[in-house]
């Protein structure tokens, strides 16, 4: 008698265990079967994607990294960069790209496929990573500025980098200089790519931070080393200075709401 009851009870327990294993808790707080299609996963056209993480992962992460992902260009969660770049310039770069460099325009007019709303979401999401910057070691140079004194820049450049860092001369490779804009060089000197060993303006020379003028000088020195494909020096192109009416960099938002990336 006991044996005859054991089988159905055992089967009941097994079925309950299977059903329990097949369930998961979803963001709506309810338990759902794992196979139940999630309305959030419903197919939608790419122009309807409004989730910042999805947009960043699909469009930016390969070149700019973020979080634990390292990439070859300046990271978009680099705090120095976030405090440096004005929001409207960031938006303009994403929308139209930077001509003559590897940064493509993602706006629809450039064939990039992102709508204006999606670009707004990207800009807001990136800026939401911003935290107040500690500038006690040296004031943050301006985002843009005219080229400075190349001779001073050369003198500073000769002091640059510590022993275990990439050799400073690698910056002077004509092909590298031919691939980047003056503004990229200036931004690189200020924010660096610390995760790959390229220091920011605090670590460019030992002992102190670069000033705004020194950043312009170093940029000028790098620009004067630019050559064409035949090794002939090129005339330095002046760096355009943003108009005086440029809006102030928005204050750091509440960082607890900053979107996270893996």
């Amino acid at each position, binding site marked *: 008698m006991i044996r005859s009851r054991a089988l159905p009870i055992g089967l009941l327990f097994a079925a309950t265990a*299977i*059903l329990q294993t*097949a369930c998961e808790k979803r963001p709506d707080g309810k338990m759902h*079967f*794992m*196979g*139940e*299609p999630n*309305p959030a996963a*419903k*197919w939608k*056209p*790419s122009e309807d994607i409004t989730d910042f993480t999805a947009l960043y*992962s*699909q*469009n*930016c*992460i*390969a*070149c700019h*990294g973020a979080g634990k*992902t*390292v*990439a*070859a*260009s300046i990271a978009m969660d680099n705090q120095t960069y976030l405090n440096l770049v004005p929001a409207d310039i960031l938006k303009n770069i994403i929308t139209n790209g930077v001509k003559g460099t*590897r940064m*493509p325009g993602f706006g629809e007019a450039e064939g990039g496929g992102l709508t204006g709303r999606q670009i707004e979401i990207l800009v807001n999401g990136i800026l939401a990573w911003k935290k107040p910057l500690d500038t006690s070691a040296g004031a943050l140079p301006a985002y843009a500025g005219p080229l400075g004194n190349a001779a001073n820049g050369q003198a500073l450049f000769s002091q640059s980098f510590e022993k275990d860092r*990439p050799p400073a001369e*690698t*910056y002077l*490779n*004509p*092909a*590298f200089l*031919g*691939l*980047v804009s003056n503004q990229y060089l200036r931004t*690189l000197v200020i924010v660096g*790519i610390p*995760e*790959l*060993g*390229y220091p920011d303006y605090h670590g460019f020379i030992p002992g102190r931070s670069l000033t705004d003028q020194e950043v312009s000088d170093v940029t000028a020195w790098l620009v004067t080393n630019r050559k064409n*494909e035949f090794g002939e020096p090129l005339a330095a192109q002046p760096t355009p200075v943003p108009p005086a009416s440029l809006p102030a960099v928005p204050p750091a938002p509440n960082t607890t709401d900053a979107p996270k990336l893996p």
Partner: protein
Amino acid sequence: MIDKATKAAQGVFTWLDSRLHIAELWEHTAGHHIPKKSASWFYVFGSLTLLCLVIQLITGTLLAFAYVPSGAEAYTTLQYLTFEQPLGWILRGIHYWGSNFMVAIMLIHMTQVYLFGAYKYPRELTWVSGVLLLVITLGLAFTGQVMRFDEDAYWGIGIGAAIAGRSPGIGEQVVQLMLGGPIIGAETLSRFFSLHVFILPGSILAVIALHLRLVLSKGINEYPEPGVLVNRETYDAHYANILKKDGMPFAPYGIWKDLVAGGIVLMAIVVCALVLGPKGPFGPPDPTQIDANPRPDFYFMWIFAIAALMPDYMETVALLIGPPIGIALLIILPFINNTGEKHWSRRPVALLAVVSLVLSLGLLTWYGITSPWSPDMTGWRSAITPKQFLEHRSPLELQGAIVIQQKQCRNCHAIDGIGSQRGPDLAAVGTRLTAPQLTRQVIQGGGNMPAYGKNLTPYEIDAVVAYMVSLRPNGVPPARDSTLPAVPPSTRQAEKNQASAEGQHGKEG
């Protein structure tokens, strides 16, 4: 009281039996005698296939209550069924997984029948009807895939029509018949709907009736014994003798295994539906949706793989002549080989054929699922580069890494397995090609790679090549120019030491 009820029930049964001959029907069907050894777990797959068909008929009928077979509304009703209709997703899930199980179990059943020699005398027509059932089942599977009218379905029809359109002489007419016009249009889905819910189910029920009739009239194949040969003159008497000596009624002695296995399959289908859910619908059936990535269901993945892998000039032959030849071979099999040994251990060619077929189809299916030949069109902006392939690189090399992304090289080339598998993985390309070789490859292309000479500036090429030369494991020197004189091992070792000191991936050296 109980006696009265029992008597009443018996009276009703007798009344019905005298008119419907239920007892006789039972005696000749479920009660038919089978060889004792044939009440084996190997013999349950036919019943399981039938069970899957019953599940498909029930769930398909229920799905038809909500599904609108119109090109304009099918996709919307699928979304309604999946996301809004209560339990609609479970219904779709069971129908989808039921079809997968049906095809898989039918193939297992055919393999078992083949290996047990059950197609031989006198069961040739049982086998032939089984082959017809396979063809109709695959037809149901294909048209069912079309009912899920999304991007997979749209391109599936397109490819099916393109294959049919190659039929010599009648291609255009076949396409017209299939699509209801020269292109996929308003009538197309209605035609596939008619096939899926009327013509093919009707056909399969008719052929199943024939198949079961043959199973009952010619009997269940005896469990094969090595060394016992089939002889047309003596087999019937031999089989009658087995039944006389060792026969027993299918119900209840054999049927319980079918019922237990049926219960397990039913549970497996329901669990798959609950855990893995229904398939799709994916993107809409819209040819202007350029980011569509259509794939057939698993049972057609091998055809997808063949179509992708074979050379162009083989396509028509392989797609139009291959399948008819395969089906014809299956149909004539019992007529060219219907006597002799039944046991698989004495039929090495049969065993080898099954193993080869399973391995080929399995491998092609795997290739179809992974489809390494397909570029990932979003790789350039979403495929990341692992840190060890970026650390300790010069600014020029880092620009090279950016050029590789921006020029969409990652749509075809992975780095350390991340990205598309269409082209070679670049993780160690610096050990295989020298800088001049890389420059030539980038500029001129070759080996299925387009030429990028007109799309890259000289500095971009410098950067890409510098970066790729740096892509090599720690301690491995860069590729050497094979036109240079050979160097003694000691020099080579010095190169390795230098490379190790410089390091590359992660620069541990």
